[in-house]
């Protein structure tokens, strides 16, 4: 069969003979290229490392707590508080000092990281999944589906986020689940809008027609043909959504309507710490630092990922 086109072959033709199935010739696709750029980006590496350290601390918090021997809620009345009842500062036994109840701030900060990352990842994960599915459906199906879904997104986007969330929490009562649900509910619409816009332009491409002419169904076209093409902006957005969710959780907890004490979160630790800042700066500084470092790291990483996917983008232009 290969003789057939031999005369007009471009020089890439293999030497005739057995077709060798080789995995060695791996294409460098858009993902690999972005990955390669990311690996050369010092900011990306730095922020990933920071996130990794925080994530590890969060995951192994119980282990670390056991190693040190300080539980997150254990009150060290004798060692953790001075005779006057004042928190003690950072030392070899309490790395970040203690709080007003004589609890270990270091242990509470890493336990707080669990909540922050959990809320950040789960809430933005849910928002991304719902947003992508709705955006795909609205953009691809068009017509009535688009009208209904777009209007729905418009409505959600035109609600005052914080006021509504607070009002909602006040009815149902504060809890971790509600916090995650509220953040996800108010975030998916912006993902959906971005995805929809992308889909509108991608669905006009000839490869979508090609798939249809092969007999591909709507679901296959949406998820096999179009989805991979909207994934890059979605991933960027997801990375930027995580710090937003973390800040939001911290804000709700700070206002006393997020995660309720004694469960340590950075937000409610800060709210407890404020009155003591002059006698125990560490009580304010460490949760605050943890919060800012985490959000900055995620935002830096998000920017780097965006640049990696689109090298013409902001930082390198």
């Amino acid at each position, binding site marked *: 069969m290969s003789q057939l086109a031999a005369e007009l072959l471009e020089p890439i033709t293999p030497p005739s003979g057995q*077709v060798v199935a080789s995995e060695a010739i791996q294409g460098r696709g858009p993902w690999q290229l972005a990955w390669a750029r990311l690996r050369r980006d010092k900011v990306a590496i730095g922020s990933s490392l920071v996130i990794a350290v925080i994530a590890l601390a969060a995951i192994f918090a119980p282990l670390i707590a056991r190693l040190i021997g300080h539980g997150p809620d254990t009150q060290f009345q004798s060692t953790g508080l001075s005779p006057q009842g004042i928190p003690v500062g950072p030392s070899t036994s309490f790395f970040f000092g203690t709080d007003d109840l004589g609890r270990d701030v270091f242990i509470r900060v890493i336990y707080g990281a669990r909540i922050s990352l959990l809320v950040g990842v789960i809430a933005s994960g849910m928002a991304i999944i719902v947003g992508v599915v709705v955006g795909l459906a609205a953009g691809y199906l068009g017509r009535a589906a688009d009208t209904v879904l777009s209007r729905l997104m418009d409505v959600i986007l035109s609600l005052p986020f914080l006021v509504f969330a607070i009002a909602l929490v006040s009815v149902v009562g504060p809890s971790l689940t509600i916090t995650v649900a509220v953040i996800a509910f108010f975030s998916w619409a912006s993902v959906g809008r971005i995805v929809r816009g992308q889909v509108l332009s991608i669905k006009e491409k*000839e490869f979508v027609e090609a798939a249809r*002419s092969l007999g591909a169904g709507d679901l296959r076209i949406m998820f096999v043909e179009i989805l991979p093409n909207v994934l890059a902006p979605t991933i960027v957005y997801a990375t930027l959504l995580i710090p937003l969710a973390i800040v939001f959780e911290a804000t709700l907890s700070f206002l006393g309507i997020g995660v309720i004490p004694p469960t340590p979160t950075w937000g409610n630790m800060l709210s407890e710490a404020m009155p003591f800042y002059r006698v125990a700066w560490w009580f304010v500084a460490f949760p605050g630092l943890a919060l800012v470092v985490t959000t900055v790291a995620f935002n830096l990483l998000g920017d780097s990922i965006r640049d990696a996917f689109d090298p013409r983008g902001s930082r390198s232009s």
Partner: protein
Amino acid sequence: MTAELRDPSPRTDEDVLLRLEEVVKYFPVTSAKVFRGKRDHVHAVDGVSLDVARGKTIALVGETGCGKSTLARCITRLYDLTSGKVVFDGEDISNHSRRRLRPYRRKMQMIFQDPYGSLNPRRRVGSIIADAFTIHGVAEGEERKAKVQELMELVGLNPEHFNRFPAEFSGGQRQRIGIARALALHPQLVVCDEPVSALDVSIQAQVINLLADLQDELGLTYVFIAHDLSVVRHVSDRIAVMYLGRIVEIADTDDLYARPRHPYTNALLSAVPVPDPDVASRRERVLLVGDVPSPIHPPTGCRFHPRCPRAQEVCAVEDPVLSLQQGDRTGHAVACHFPLTDGEAHA
């Protein structure tokens, strides 16, 4: 509507694989003034009838915007028809639902114009070509991979490159990928929508030759779309010239080149480059004046009359019917009140 109901040159001795009957496709125009009672439409294809013989190639030629690509998508039923019939292998598929169309997707394939837009940039070439197998549940695993590599070899690609992404191939190679994808399920009919117009001239010949060889080897029937007459001469058996959604002339290839009847065909032919400079310099170039009129409000009468050098009063009033020339036996039909005679053609 006065266009003929049938291809005026039905040749019963031939095996007709595809028959178009008075195919019409209008697109509604989205305009800001929605509440104007009547909505405007683009008359993209406006009554085209055509027979395509099995194993042969018919070329559809016309300027950008004449409706040839829309017609291609009506044939492959990527679009729903406004009216008319598409009859494939004896069965009217013009109103088939997507589900009922599925078996026909295997028999009827399309090669697209844009080698960049027609391949999903985020997917590996092997999986793009394997799409047909995946969708129709043909072959699995190693067998599927072997079939993909066989196809790649058939179209002149290195089978080991199945793991690469489209961006790593040249335009010509990408078009070969598109061809491999179209051929995966051994279709009977392949609609080629300007398959070479986006390629370098040096590559065009290679791809056209490949298509011709594949036709011989696999007994394919082609509907070949092109925007000028230079490309199609060597690949087509028959040529239909389209203007503003209508066929204005249809004839066997040699006949059309030798004796164009429609002034528009004549103009297109005069634009075909000829290799002999002496002939080229002697030749008179028929220049068309003006732009292609809006397909939203096509001209009255003969649609070509505002640009036609031979137009007379009747042309603005009466729509000429696509009909056989007197005494014709080769099936050469033209829609013109004042067709050219043998001596009047361009060269």
